[in-house]
């Protein structure tokens, strides 16, 4: 049975986002590979931080500000997203992402507890702008694989990659 999480509502309500912009979020029952049990608190924290990372990604891509990635991304994911922003800035492009729905399932919790992997069946709107002019707007349905690792106070996205549905 699917469970609806209100985590994002809390996150976005705190940030003053409009209710209309809040994505709907579903969390599938966890079927982990790996010997390490996943505590409920950990699961909630990971999902909260993953959804927050999408907000950070959208803001960074929309404003072409790589510094906005720092709160939610580390390692390879941060480097790739920052490189994208660098190209966007150079070419006068920016891309607006608005996530609409997430269907998340945690699939792997590494034995030493240093990484959690999830898959997200996501729908978002992608708007491509050149010199501030909209050149295209597309609804996207994709499947993302994300790996998060713990930092001092939160989980951060280390790998974010989509694959064919």
């Amino acid at each position: 049975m699917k469970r609806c999480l209100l985590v994002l509502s809390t996150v976005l309500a705190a940030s003053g986002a409009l209710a209309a912009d809040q994505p709907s979020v579903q969390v599938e029952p966890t079927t982990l590979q790996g010997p390490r049990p996943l505590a409920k608190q950990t699961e909630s924290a990971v999902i909260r931080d993953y959804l927050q990372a999408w907000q950070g990604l959208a803001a960074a891509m929309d404003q072409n500000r790589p510094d906005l990635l720092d709160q939610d991304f580390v390692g390879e994911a941060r480097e790739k997203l920052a490189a994208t922003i660098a190209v966007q800035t150079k070419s006068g492009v920016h891309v607006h992402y608005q996530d609409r729905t997430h269907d998340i399932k945690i699939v792997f919790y590494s034995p030493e507890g240093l990484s959690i992997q999830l898959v997200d069946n996501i729908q978002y709107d992608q708007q491509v702008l050149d010199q501030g002019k909209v050149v295209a707007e597309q609804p996207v349905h994709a499947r993302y694989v994300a790996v998060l690792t713990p930092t001092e106070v939160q989980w951060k996205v280390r790998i974010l990659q989509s694959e064919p549905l």
Partner: protein
Amino acid sequence: MSRTALIFATILLAAALRASAQDATLDVPKSVVAGTAFSIPTEGSGQATLYIAGPDQVLKRDVQLGQPIAIAAGDLYNAGHYVAVLSSGSASNTAQFDVLPVTQPASISFLARPSRLPVDLQNGITGAVYVFDSYSNLITSPVPVNFQLSVASAPTQTRTVTTNQGAAWTGMNSASKEGNAKFTAMAGGVSATRVINQVPGEPCGLKMSAHKAGDKLNLITDPLKDCTGNAVSDGTIVTFTETWDGGQTTVDVPLKRDVAQAEVPAHMGAHLSVATGTVMGNEIRWEGQE
């Protein structure tokens, strides 16, 4: 030219431009492998701009309609879902496609834990891997990963696990003999190795003897070994306790060359015990001789 004629001409021109742009159909492959070359055929004529945009990479190219757009090898290398837009004038054509990871592994992220553990522990060692291609894309298609734990004194343990969404893990037993073990993960000709230090386990059969030396008792343990015969590490603290006439004397000494020894007052009828960590040894009641 009259105002009406000017408006009519403008409308015709806009319609013509739109028709020209809409002729530029966009036929992008549904999926391409990261870093490989591909081309996008175009129709029509005139200049246009191609955008390929996803969170992991963005490309922008000025292109000539009517000629194929060449995406060279190495241009688009980050795996992911992309929106392609061919924009000409006020119109644009779009398509969506996927860039897939290269299936040949090029690097492994290998987390092995712990770095130090006692010998003879079932599934005490764990290793988790993520497998990447040469562009640091996570290879999400199944990849067999071979885990090997090798020590000098025992046969190599081998396990093969197929990745699921790019990740695989295994558990291994620590060897019965102390020493460093090489823990290696291999996938597609790429390997990563970690060193695991296997140390003796808890002492097994802690035993002491007492010998009179003047007005003192010299307490000395037998050489301390764990349950698989490894000498317990020097420096391990051994606690000798003497209880006599309601009082208690405790002496903590580090293990040195496999044995621990201490001197306590020789009281007739004293009760002597020895322990290290959570392991209790034998007890002696001192009656003038052992």
